[in-house]
């Protein structure tokens, strides 16, 4: 771990290439990474795997992988993190919620909590955001361990699941965000469901329908016996539906309260995760593993209440299932339009798909192995598959596939762990064969883990910010006046961390999305946006990260940006205000005649 941290600290964003952070991390990082992976598997094959060592190794893996970017630059990655800090700043200063500002204010739970947390603890939220990937993953792994321990009592399997999740989670949704918080709640709620609300033995929906019909018949014919019995006189009704002792009923009621309370917090914090939860809970009911078949209805009611009341301001004009059923649009936004850019970037995108496919393949092998060994992982399979129903519902800005992959990953990791273990367990395996099996598992996890590091940090050239990028935005705010429209070259830009609703924020990337636009056409759109602003003044910032994002993602022609900059710098209504090695800041004033 020390080798990994040392190597990460040596990094410079300027040296990072189009293939991202992985190629620049240096030999010592990868030696350290291999040692962590090897030590884990060496420890797990022992007769009594030492929990403390495994916990320390897991912490080492988390810090090495998820803390690498934080050690390198000490600046939070990604534009969205900075925006979230701005929303919290706005709440602290406003002391109230204006749901009309944007979607975030329709689901403000996470921001409200961190407003209180930041002010109460005195800890800088920039530092919290900087290390968010590490502490989010640490909390997720605890939630995952609690969840998986409801699926199997086998400690090795639990540790392996945790390790695989930590090794292959390239999805990069662990930054300072409502979805990371909601995912933690998702894991906890499912763990509580599997512990307290599990139907034992399983009762499928079909079975429940049959029982309901039988009850109705009995009501019609009261003279008949009230319960069907077999030859020995025992009730034929499944145990879960038959009368339960009071203690069990009380536990179930408490479980229901717990799940409903946590789900309500989730619903107040994030738009998408509650739908994933609804599907997961629905899947458990469908396969007969839930003792509370009405729970999806309860969740649906809470969700509907939130959408109708606090979130209604945003939902006017933003329907929940905007692309429902439009598979072509969903596929285009989630796959086709995302797979573009420089050759190295395309390599990173392919790597992401390969890692995901490999984990799913391992999960399929694991499922087969466990099935043959007599384990019926119906709950696990249902929970792994359920999130995919979300795919045709919404494109979610092209991120739905990423989110679905994350929601299914805990269960895919559980099944994949079975593929990395010998078919009949490590203890039965011959002593001489154990190191071979362990070496194979280490090799596989090592390759997947290294590929995940590459996939995770593939955008590092533009989503890791330098001090120059931060200084550029600071200069922008120094020059901005209330009512100005602020325009950046592209996403990501580390802005909106202050003055959240004092300005309109736009990017050339969004304004000039039409590929047929010329520089003149793009400038015209910028001009129009500035003309519509309250002050008739706009500031246009183009910094290093913007230029790299435009070049690598091929979403906008660099020539168009150069043309707009030339027009801004030389035109009668524009001027170059400030410039540095890393950025140019232009001012555009538009008369209202």
């Amino acid at each position, binding site marked *: 771990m020390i080798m990994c941290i040392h190597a990460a600290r040596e990094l410079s964003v300027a040296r990072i290439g189009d293939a991202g952070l992985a190629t620049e991390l240096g030999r010592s990082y990868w030696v350290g990474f291999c040692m962590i992976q090897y030590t884990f598997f060496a420890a797990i094959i022992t007769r009594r795997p030492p929990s403390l060592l495994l916990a320390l190794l897991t912490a080492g893996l988390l810090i090495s992988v998820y803390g690498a970017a934080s050690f390198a630059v000490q600046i939070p990655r990604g534009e969205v993190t900075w925006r979230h800090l701005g929303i919290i700043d706005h709440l602290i200063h406003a002391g109230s919620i204006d749901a009309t500002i944007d979607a975030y204010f329709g689901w403000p739970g996470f921001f409200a909590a961190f407003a209180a947390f930041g002010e109460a603890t005195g800890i800088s939220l920039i530092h919290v955001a900087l290390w968010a990937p590490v502490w989010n993953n640490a909390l997720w792994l605890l939630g995952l361990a609690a969840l998986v321990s409801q699926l199997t009592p086998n400690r090795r399997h639990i540790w392996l699941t945790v390790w695989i999740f930590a090794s292959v989670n390239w999805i990069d949704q662990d930054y300072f965000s409502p979805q990371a918080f909601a995912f933690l709640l998702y894991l906890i709620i499912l763990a509580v469901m599997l512990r307290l609300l599990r139907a034992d033995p399983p009762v499928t929906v079909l079975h429940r329908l049959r029982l309901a019909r039988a009850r109705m018949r009995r009501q019609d014919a009261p003279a008949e016996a009230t319960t069907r019995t077999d030859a020995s006189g025992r009730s034929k009704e499944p145990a879960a539906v038959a009368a339960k002792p009071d203690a069990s009923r009380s536990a179930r009621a408490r479980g229901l309260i717990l799940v409903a309370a*946590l789900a309500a917090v989730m619903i107040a914090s994030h738009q998408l995760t509650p739908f994933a939860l609804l599907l997961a809970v629905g899947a458990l009911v469908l396969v007969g593993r839930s003792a509370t078949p009405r729970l999806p209805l309860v969740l649906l009611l809470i969700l509907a209440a939130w959408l109708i009341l606090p979130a209604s301001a945003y939902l006017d004009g933003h329907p929940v299932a905007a692309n429902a059923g439009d598979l072509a649009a969903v596929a285009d936004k989630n796959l086709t339009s995302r797979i573009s850019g420089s050759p190295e970037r395309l390599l990173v995108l392919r790597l992401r798909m390969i890692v995901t496919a490999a984990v799913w393949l391992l999960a399929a092998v694991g499922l087969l192995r466990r099935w043959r060994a007599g384990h019926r992982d119906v709950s696990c399979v249902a929970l792994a598959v359920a999130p995919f129903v979300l795919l045709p519902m919404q494109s979610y800005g092209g991120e739905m596939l990423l989110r679905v992959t994350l929601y299914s990953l805990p269960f895919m990791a559980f099944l994949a762990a079975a593929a990395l273990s010998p078919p009949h367990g490590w203890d039965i395996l011959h002593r001489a064969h154990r190191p071979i099996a362990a070496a194979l598992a280490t090799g596989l996890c090592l390759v997947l883990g290294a590929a995940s590091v590459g996939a995770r940090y593939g955008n590092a050239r533009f989503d890791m910010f330098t001090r120059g990028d931060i200084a550029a935005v600071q200069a922008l705010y120094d020059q901005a006046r209330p009512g100005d429209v602020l325009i950046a070259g592209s996403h990501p830009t580390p802005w909106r961390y202050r003055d959240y609703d004092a300005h309109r924020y736009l990017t050339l990337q969004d304004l000039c999305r039409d590929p047929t636009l010329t520089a003149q056409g793009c400038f015209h759109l910028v001009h129009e946006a500035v003309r519509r602003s309250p002050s008739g003044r706009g500031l246009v910032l183009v910094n290093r990260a913007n230029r790299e994002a435009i070049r690598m993602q091929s979403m906008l022609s660099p020539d168009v940006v150069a043309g707009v900059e030339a027009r801004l710098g030389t035109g009668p209504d524009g001027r170059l205000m400030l410039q540095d090695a890393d950025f140019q800041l232009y001012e555009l004033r538009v008369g209202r005649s």
Partner: protein
Amino acid sequence: MSQAQPSAAGSLSGGDAERALLTGVALLGATAVCTAVLLLPDRQPLQAVAGLALTAYLPGAALARRLLPTEPSRASDQLLRAVVAVGLSLGTTVAASLGLLYMEQWSWQRTVLLLAAVTAVATLPDVLRRRWPWRRSA
């Protein structure tokens, strides 16, 4: 003679009942100390720890004791209770802060007081219900 008290986990043995009582008292004490540290006029060095404990653990730990029936011997139950405590604490912080924001009464001090109140309300009835050692011997 120690008397078992009914709880979420069913009936408790004498040792378990005493442990539950001690946990309840510890939760109340920690909440009082954390609230005092946070609300004192000068910023205290322990403020970060106290804030973290009050927003991310104590209210949830108190609520989890009431809502989550666990078998103390099961490691998986202990882990689940710890994780649920964190989730419920963060959830309580969301609810308290969000409620104050919607009522336009938000301040972090009020949020802290609400969190302390939730912890106390969730813990006090259980602590008062239990037989204290000196009452038992009397």
